[in-house]
């Protein structure tokens, strides 16, 4: 194999297997003492997120979309201790509650963007801030987005102004395997760990198609010029999975031998294969940048060959061509409303992609991949909904909101905590100035765990990131 990272991995493993052989020869079960069992800490960067202080809030008289397809006109929602405690039409205000009359306004679950590079490609987008693609090796499962996450990115506050309460921050798509993603609550933090969504599983970014073969195939970034074709891309994924299987077998054997009383050394630690093996164990979800239907179709077979699950295809510009297959395979499509045409694999984008995927019974998600787009995901859903209706796909606004909160939460494995408005769920809630499917509506209040993180009508209360402090435009309406 000419994939550079894997080459060095294989060399290391050869040495390690040889060493194990020597140990085994010198030691038999029950004969002498065992070393301490080596159990890898799989979560060394713990979330230090703590919810902001919040009170009891009752919002009344609103049009509520619950995010699961339900709609309540003249609805009320009660937020207590950072959780949704009740939702309905007739909720009595507790004595200590702040009551917000929301007549004419709408309430929805907070928007969850499954594809953001905030923090890893922050504003200002100067070269010094370009932290999203670990170019130089096509398989970098050992790179973690949270290690590049700059919590001072002003984009986080703009996203809160657009009703975004959680996001998956991903490495870029230069590599076949870009690395681990991190899911965050959209609250200001001093360090990356302050933003990490507690208990959210990790994701891993992979990429199909043009980007990896362009980045490597021109020879600028790899002395070995691989991959330079879609064939090379697939060879790269498959070899990486095969290596990960091998690596997992080494660890399984180590554990078996140790439990059998042998004094054995663990396999050499390989951070790249740690993450890939985590996917094969079902602990890490794969989110794969893939535009073309045929690229996605190939990945369905790679997925089955190595027995892992792709949680989502990202961008998925041609999902409408294979939406039935995506439904059968339980894979979400994270899509734009109308981006297309800026590269060949985006050439066949249509405005009805999202509603057509929805119609096929597959999981549809509206995503941004953009520090600008993340601020108006409600408008993206609105455009897709309107285009779908004009093409004869009858979808309600309540159902369309599943593209913005429940489906993204499912694909990230956090739907037990957020994504819908139901008693016991995290109070990640947006109060909109009007119908959020209108270009004129704005988020009046964005709550994360019941605390206001953005208040349009009281701008002096809103956070200003360190970078914008003392600069032109500090604290301005944006």
């Amino acid at each position, binding site marked *: 194999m000419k994939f550079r990272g894997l080459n060095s991995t294989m060399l290391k493993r050869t040495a390690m297997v040889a060493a194990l052989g020597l140990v085994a020869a010198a030691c038999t079960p029950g004969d002498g003492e065992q070393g301490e069992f080596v159990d890898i800490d799989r979560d060394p960067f713990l979330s230090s997120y703590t919810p902001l202080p919040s009170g009891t809030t009752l919002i009344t008289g609103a049009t509520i979309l619950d995010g699961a397809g339900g709609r309540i006109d003249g609805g009320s929602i009660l937020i207590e201790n950072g959780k949704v405690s009740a939702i309905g039409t007739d909720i009595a205000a507790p004595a200590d509650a702040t009551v917000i009359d929301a007549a004419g306004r709408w309430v929805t679950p907070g928007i969850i963007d499954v594809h953001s590079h905030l923090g890893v490609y922050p504003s200002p987008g100067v070269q010094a801030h370009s932290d999203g693609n670990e170019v130089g090796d096509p398989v970098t499962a050992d790179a973690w987005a949270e290690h590049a996450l700059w919590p001072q990115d002003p984009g986080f506050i703009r996203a809160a102004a657009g009703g975004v309460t959680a996001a998956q921050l991903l490495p870029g798509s230069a590599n076949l395997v870009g690395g681990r993603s991190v899911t965050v609550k959209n609250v200001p933090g001093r360090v990356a760990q302050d933003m990490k969504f507690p208990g959210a599983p990790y994701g891993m970014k992979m990429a199909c198609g043009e980007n990896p073969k362009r980045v490597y195939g021109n020879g600028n970034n790899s002395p070995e010029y691989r991959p330079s074709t879609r064939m090379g891309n697939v060879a790269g994924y498959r070899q990486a999975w095969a290596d990960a299987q091998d690596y997992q077998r080494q660890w399984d054997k180590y554990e078996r031998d140790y439990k059998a009383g042998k004094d054995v050394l663990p396999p050499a630690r390989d951070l790249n294969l740690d993450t890939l093996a985590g996917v094969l164990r079902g602990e890490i979800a794969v989110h794969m940048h893939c535009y073309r239907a045929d690229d996605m179709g190939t990945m369905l077979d790679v997925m089955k060959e190595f027995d892992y699950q792709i949680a989502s295809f990202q961008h998925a510009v041609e999902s409408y061509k294979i939406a039935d297959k995506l439904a059968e395979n339980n894979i979400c499509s994270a899509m734009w409303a109308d981006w297309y045409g800026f590269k060949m694999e985006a050439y066949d984008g249509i405005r009805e992609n999202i509603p057509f995927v929805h119609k096929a019974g597959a999981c549809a998600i509206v995503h941004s991949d953009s520090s600008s787009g993340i601020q108006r995901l409600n408008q993206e859903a609105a*455009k897709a909904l309107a285009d779908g209706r004009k093409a004869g796909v009858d979808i309600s606004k309540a159902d369309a909101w599943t593209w913005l909160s429940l489906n993204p939460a499912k694909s990230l494995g956090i739907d037990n905590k957020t994504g819908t408005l139901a008693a016991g769920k995290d109070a990640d809630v947006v109060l909109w100035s009007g119908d959020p499917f209108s270009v004129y509506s704005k988020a009046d209040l964005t709550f994360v765990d019941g605390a206001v993180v953005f208040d349009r009508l009281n701008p002096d209360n809103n956070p200003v990131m360190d970078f914008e402090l003392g600069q032109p435009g500090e604290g301005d309406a944006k």
Partner: protein
Amino acid sequence: MRKLISIAAIAAASFTASVSAEDIAITGGKAFTNGGSGEIENATILVSGGKITSVSSGGAVPSGYRVIDASGKWVTAGFMAADTSLGLTEVSLSGGINDATAPAEKGAIGLSVVPALNPANIFIPNTRIEGVTRAMTRMTNSGDMWLGLGAVLKLNDSDMVVQEKAFLAIDLDEGSATEVGGSRAVLWSKLNEKFQAAKDKMDAAAKKDDDDKKDDKRPSAADAALNAVLSGDMPIYAVVNRKADILQLIAFQNRFGVRVILGGGAEAWMVADMLAAAGIGVVLEPSANLPGNFDTLAQTSAAAGRLHASGVKVAFIPPGTHNSRLVVQNAGIAVSMGMPWAAAMDALTVNPAEMFGVGDSYGKLSAGMDADVVVWDGDPLEVMSSPDAVLIAGVDVPLVSRQTKLRDRYKDLDRSPAFDR
């Protein structure tokens, strides 16, 4: 190969048939005849010979006119995307040549983009069926600050060019300074020197009598362009964002007395009064509100409304040439951040028409204007609205594009729909 040729011949034949302008009456709609103002209920708009011949409330329809019923609908002039590379860019990334960029070319002052235009570009139908019937188009990149002479297009299938050499585009932003000596000090010095030299040459020529002039060579394309700018016949379109640089631009305008349109203008709102006094219009991207670099620190989506309130004429840049159609959403975003609705409508029609010198024939619904008319199923700035009919220079354009054909092909999933035509 033979089959391909015959298909092309059929396509050419049907295309010719579709461009003949009919007599059309658009009736019953709520029309906005002058940007966002001039509202007429139950409007009758008569179109003949590619022009609007009459606009009235409840007017009769002459015999022989085909009626487009716009009852319950909104009717506006076709919109204009005021800064694009339409017709010049095919697939911008790894998809073949991109005629909007000429990184090896320096000193592109007299160069017109028109010979590079491709009317068959798929972005053109995708844009017009969303109600955007006009576009300013230009190069975005060269080996220095000169981006050549841009054009104004109407987005039909033929005779696209409404105004060739509509403006001289100059990049005076950070990226351009990087190309030109590596410093803004060099950039501004070179710009001023170039215009001073051209002015001196013009002044010297003006002192000659006709007899002395007869041996003069024809001016180069670059000199002709600079002369047109210095004599006020052609504006410059200056791409610049930082407040300090915008102040330099205002000083440049004062020095040479040229007409200036400001493109980008991230921090223009900070000097809105000065721009208004100088008569400099601003073409901006309303959704841009992040400090993307150190030139755009104070960028805000409230800028369009603030500039308008100060009396500055505003027009809009869409988010990328391929999505030129989204200039309409951008207008809605400007409204959501404080710009009056009528002003945002002006920014899509009469303002860019006037800025780029085509206001005599486009921008309003009134007799004598080119018949660019759009019938909308609701408020045109709303993201859930879209056109039910689009006329460009009197031609009722089919609401069909490569995208709608893909949509129709895959509406019901088959094993392989490649034979469905």
